[in-house]
């Protein structure tokens, strides 16, 4: 007997008898002999629950993690504090063992929570509509390009090189197969190179795509870029750090048409890169071009407020090959965790987190400069910044690890033109002592 399978021998006999068969094997007679499996899978198991836990602890024990090291690594995933209520709520079986809310009468919990999520994302981004989530920041960035292409009836987008390299790679993959062209434009002092953008921008461009704060942590002049894009009839797409939006102007107020981003920072653990969630929000004009699920408010037959999946005529299960996207399962539970996080931090808390990140990262930058590192860009930054290390970054990181620090991201792989560029992230979790220790250890290694 198996603890997840209730069929006793008597149950099986009773069911076989009802079906008029001598053994369960008969039910598989329609599988052609040639493709029937002979023998067993060559895989380990079975294990008892206790054996499994011991095995998993052993595997997990082979990883050093963010509770044993002070982390100055970001580059898309951040060590923000996750309040206890988030896992407590996400661990409720009523949430995590439900399917996509196809039957609204018995899915109001998920539907209302996602409606609240959408409302909070719209509030942060300054947009009219948010969908129920995407796979991650990269795929929501890529899919937004297609929205722009359909809306403008154009087939080419311009993307800044200051955007997260993995986002750009995903965009290029998606676009290649969809037959959409992607051209990149450069950066100057860590910000969009407006002259380069201008030289590439014309009436064939569906969208200008930027990230702010960008991959270097630098705040882009979204308003000016949006104006430029709109002057040629292109849309402005941005990818934003949701934490930063507590103190940085909402992209919607700056002229963005679509705002995407990675939601990990909102109450999701790093977990080796996933699952997290992507958000995607847009103007009212683009409502019916949105990919994925959207929850809408309505009333029931008794006049009570209720929520449903709405505007489904955009989606694959109705529209099939003419759908706005193929997305079906998204990252609902991660978005729900995002909603619980935003509710927990609230209006004041999110601002405090953002200000702590801002002040601590600036403090860390100054400390590192005093230790012999050079600030790479003068442009304003939010919680991440680039310094030039006197010594190759991989060697430096290796040394720092031995002293209990996870160092910053090595820019050499994707930005060879920035010699020995070191991307440092400082969240609200880093204490002054940790920053001081990190800076002096780093200084000690390069002197």
């Amino acid at each position, binding site marked *: 007997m*198996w603890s997840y399978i*209730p069929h006793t021998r008597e149950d099986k006999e009773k069911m076989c008898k009802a079906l008029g068969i001598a053994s369960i094997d008969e039910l598989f007679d329609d599988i052609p002999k040639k493709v029937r499996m002979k023998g067993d899978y060559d895989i*380990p198991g079975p294990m008892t629950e206790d054996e*499994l836990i011991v095995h998993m602890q052993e595997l997990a024990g082979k990883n050093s993690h963010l509770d044993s090291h002070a982390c100055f690594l970001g580059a898309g995933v951040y060590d923000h504090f996750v309040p206890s209520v988030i896992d407590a709520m996400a661990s409720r079986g009523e949430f995590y063992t439900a399917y996509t809310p196809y039957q609204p009468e018995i899915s109001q919990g998920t539907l209302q929570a996602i409606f609240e999520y959408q409302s909070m994302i719209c*509030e942060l981004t300054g947009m009219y509509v948010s969908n129920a989530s995407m796979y991650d920041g990269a795929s929501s960035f890529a899919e937004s390009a297609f929205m722009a292409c359909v809306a403008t009836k154009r087939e080419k987008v311009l993307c800044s090189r200051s955007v997260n390299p993995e986002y750009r790679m995903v965009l290029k993959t998606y676009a290649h197969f969809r037959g959409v062209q992607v051209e990149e434009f450069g950066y100057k002092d860590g910000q969009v190179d407006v002259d380069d953008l201008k030289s590439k921008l014309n009436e064939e461009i569906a969208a200008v795509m930027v990230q702010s704060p960008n991959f270097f942590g630098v705040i882009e002049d979204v308003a000016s870029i949006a104006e430029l894009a709109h002057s040629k009839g292109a849309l402005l797409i941005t990818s934003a750090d949701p934490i930063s939006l507590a103190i940085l102007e909402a992209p919607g107020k700056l002229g963005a048409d679509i705002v995407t981003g990675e939601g990990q920072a909102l109450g999701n653990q790093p977990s080796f890169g*996933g699952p997290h969630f992507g958000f995607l929000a847009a103007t009212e004009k683009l409502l019916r071009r949105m990919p994925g699920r959207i929850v809408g408010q309505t009333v029931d037959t008794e006049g*009570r407020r209720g929520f449903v999946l709405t505007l489904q005529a955009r989606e694959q299960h109705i529209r099939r090959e003419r759908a706005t996207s193929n997305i079906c399962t*998204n990252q*609902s539970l991660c978005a729900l965790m995002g909603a619980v996080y935003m509710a927990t931090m609230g209006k004041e808390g999110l601002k405090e987190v953002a200000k702590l990140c801002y002040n601590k990262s600036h403090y860390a930058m100054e400390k590192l400069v005093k230790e012999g590192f050079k600030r790479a860009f003068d442009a304003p930054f939010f919680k991440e910044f680039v310094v030039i290390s006197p010594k190759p970054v991989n060697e430096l990181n290796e040394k720092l690890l031995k002293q209990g620090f996870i160092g910053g991201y090595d820019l050499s792989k994707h930005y060879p033109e920035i010699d020995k560029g070191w991307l440092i992230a400082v969240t609200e979790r880093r204490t002054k002592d940790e920053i001081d220790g990190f800076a002096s250890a780093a200084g000690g290694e390069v002197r």
Partner: protein
Amino acid sequence: MKKPVELIFELSKPGRKAYSLPACDVPEASEKIPEKFARKADARLPEVFEVDVVRHFTRLSQLNYAVDIGFYPLGSCTMKYNPKVNEVVSRLPGFLRIHPYQPEEMVQGALKLIYDLEKMLCEITGMERATLQPAAGAHGELTGLMIIKTALEHRGEGHRNKIIIPDSAHGTNPASASMVGYEVVEVKSDERGNVDVEDLKKLMSDEVAGIMLTNPNTLGLFEERIDEISKIIHDAGGLLYYDGANLNANLGKARPGDMGFDVVHLNLHKTFSTPHGGGGPGSGPIAVTKELVPFLPAPLVEYDGNRYYLNYDRPSSIGRVRSFYGNFNVMIKAYAYILTMGPEGLREVAECSVLSANYLMKRLRDYFDLPYDRWCKHEFVISGNRQKKSKGVTTLDMVKRLIDYGFHPPTVYFPLIVPEAMMVEPTETESLETLDAFAESLIAIAKEAEENPQLVKESPKTTPVTRLDEVTAAKRPIVKWEFES
């Protein structure tokens, strides 16, 4: 307006807080955010205290139906039990608290898990290598089709632009095909519910890139002529894509690789017990034959006999389909499930899920139309056509009534080729008593449809809300909370 539960915004009161943050222990930055970049008006997030948050989301959760509450026979979704131990082990700090860009030396356990899970999934599917990057089934389809397109280009066959998809297929199949620029060609089903092989032959040309098949298909029926289909497609120069939504019935019984498939996607959130989360996160790995390995996305996890590492050196790769390595925390749960079950346990899963489905079909067949009368696999499709014709009670009405009996409805109006379809997938984790109770309820509803159709049409009555006005929701969309300004 009456409200089952207030919105979190309606609980907000200035001055309340649910968080505790440290005071700033560094001096305030002398460099200020330039005025033009600074936020002018605060984001109006709710202001509540911690008890509000907990009670609010707990109340919301209580409005949901879920596998932990009861029977959830949603066809093609494999709503099996989600083991608790998997939740526990996936939350170990060594798994939850690791950054994806940490040096490989620090994350050997995580890399080993990905490596070993890939091996197990290859063994289960009969394929050479796999990528665990895709975040969901449809994401896997997209990735798989990109691989097919690239592989054909490498063969010098880049002109092939048509993908054949059965009329019984999931909506994601054609949507994914069009996202990679393929034209969708539909192949009919025959009277046994299988791909119509004669129709398929007629569709063959040197423009065909391949076929997307679910096996068992969405009618819950095994494609008996899979061998022939695979030969027809391969002989014509195309490739076979396996939609893994229904792999549960094949565990320990038949492997897609042995059926001739070239690309296989799996739904770890279906077959391998990871929870669906109310719509994700899932995980949709893609496994491929040896010929297609070079085209898998970068990176793959490799082992050099001493250490595990990420290999980005993949010059023929399709590129990347998401950041990092996939939904790692979902992978942990699937890995734990496979280890718990082992080879015999997985075969038991297939046998019991198929036995339960056939038993339930047998119990219901006299009361509903049965479009395909043969052994089913993990699920079956019946039709409410009889009830609709008789008293105008639709399948939707009947499944809404099921809610009053304490069950989640099956998948309805799908596959599209069966009118008034109900697609029932019991999975192996439901007892004989549950199956009997469900059958008796549905039989009672069939009787109600005859004797008291109004009762069925007005159901459900026992839920937090009754039927909702979806038409107005789509016509005049309210997609966010409107603040009183």
